[in-house]
């Protein structure tokens, strides 16, 4: 079979196009570009209720992504959810009285952990625990509380 240069050229271009497409899928479409590749350290936060928080949910400070939830566990002794946060090493200066809350992005969006730095001198290190936490807001609870309050108001009038 005769092998012309143009055949080889075309096949080479085809393979290059295929590999480039795979590269685009990996880099531009998937989460590879947002995965933190650098070093990270762990913080632990305990919540009464984590709502719809998932492993790999974002952790933000002032809206900036600083890490992700790496594990969710349940403490059988204290009846609390234990959430391990993977924070990028370059954000290692959170004061000890930093608080963690679970928020929802948008009305029906996914849930994330929001950190709010406090004012103490000492900083949180690898493995330390965030003491001030606020649980996820469960819409059903809010609605039923609102309804009960209304009913109670109506009763006293």
């Amino acid at each position: 079979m005769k092998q012309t240069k143009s055949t080889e050229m075309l096949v080479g271009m085809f393979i290059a196009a295929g590999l480039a497409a795979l590269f685009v899928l990996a880099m531009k479409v998937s989460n590879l570009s947002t995965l933190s590749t650098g070093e990270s350290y762990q913080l632990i936060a305990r919540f009464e209720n984590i709502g719809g928080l998932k492993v790999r949910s974002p952790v933000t400070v002032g809206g900036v992504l600083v890490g992700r939830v790496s594990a969710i566990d349940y403490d059988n002794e204290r009846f609390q959810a234990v959430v391990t946060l993977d924070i990028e090493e370059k954000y290692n200066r959170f004061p000890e009285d930093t608080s963690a809350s679970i928020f929802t992005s948008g009305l029906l969006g996914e849930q994330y952990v929001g950190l709010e730095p406090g004012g103490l001198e000492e900083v949180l290190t690898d493995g330390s625990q965030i003491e001030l936490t606020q649980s996820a807001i469960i819409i059903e609870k809010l609605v039923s509380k609102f309804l009960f309050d209304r009913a109670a108001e109506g009763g006293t009038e």
Partner: protein
Amino acid sequence: MLEWIRELGRGGFRYFEKLGRSTLFLIKTLAGIPAVLARPGLLVAQLLSVGVLSLLIITVSGLFVGMVLALQGYNTLVDFGAEESLGVVVSLSIVRELGPVVTALLFAGRAGSALTAEIGLMKATEQLSGMEMMAVDPIHRVIAPRFLAGFLSMPLLAAVFSAVGIYGGFFVGVGLLGVDDGAYWSQMQAKVDLYDDVLNGVIKSVVFGFVATWIAVFEGYDTVPTSEGVSRATTRTVVHSALAVLGLDFVLTALMFGE
């Protein structure tokens, strides 16, 4: 009645005979692959006809599938005020399902049928027996390069389809319908996982490429050496490949994404 049951039994025998023949054929073909690697020229020529020449239809289909997905998805999402998620909808449907499946169907129609017709005609015109007379194994010389070319081309074609489709969705969504540029990509990157979504899509396309090419070369090699036989074999290639791809897609999806 008895005749009918006997006919059923004969059909069953024929079916298993064919299954056995195709498996033996596959083993022989796989054994012939080292011989192909020793002569890459044969492979390059087949990559040209199977892969490069399929590129046009794959690219155009990918572009239009992406554009249609964006249009349709937008209409639904805008009711919920969630048109920013358009990128997620388009990319997940393409990367997980439409990319591998539509590419495999087009591949069976464009390249598979051509492979069957070519090999079938070689058999009908006794070129394959001619090769055997000259002590050239037609499996090494004709079948294995075509099989390998199809197997290698399919994942690349599917990747091109997916990438082009996502850009097609981008053009319609961002350019035409006014979805935010940044939201299109960032929501996509937040929701599409490299391993769970992209890699599983690639695995699907590898499996489909293997099956579709296997069916194509086997039907060609196994054809009844008449013009009618070749025409039937070509039809069977397209029908069987499409059915195999769709059936396997369900199984693979259940394995990969079913909890």
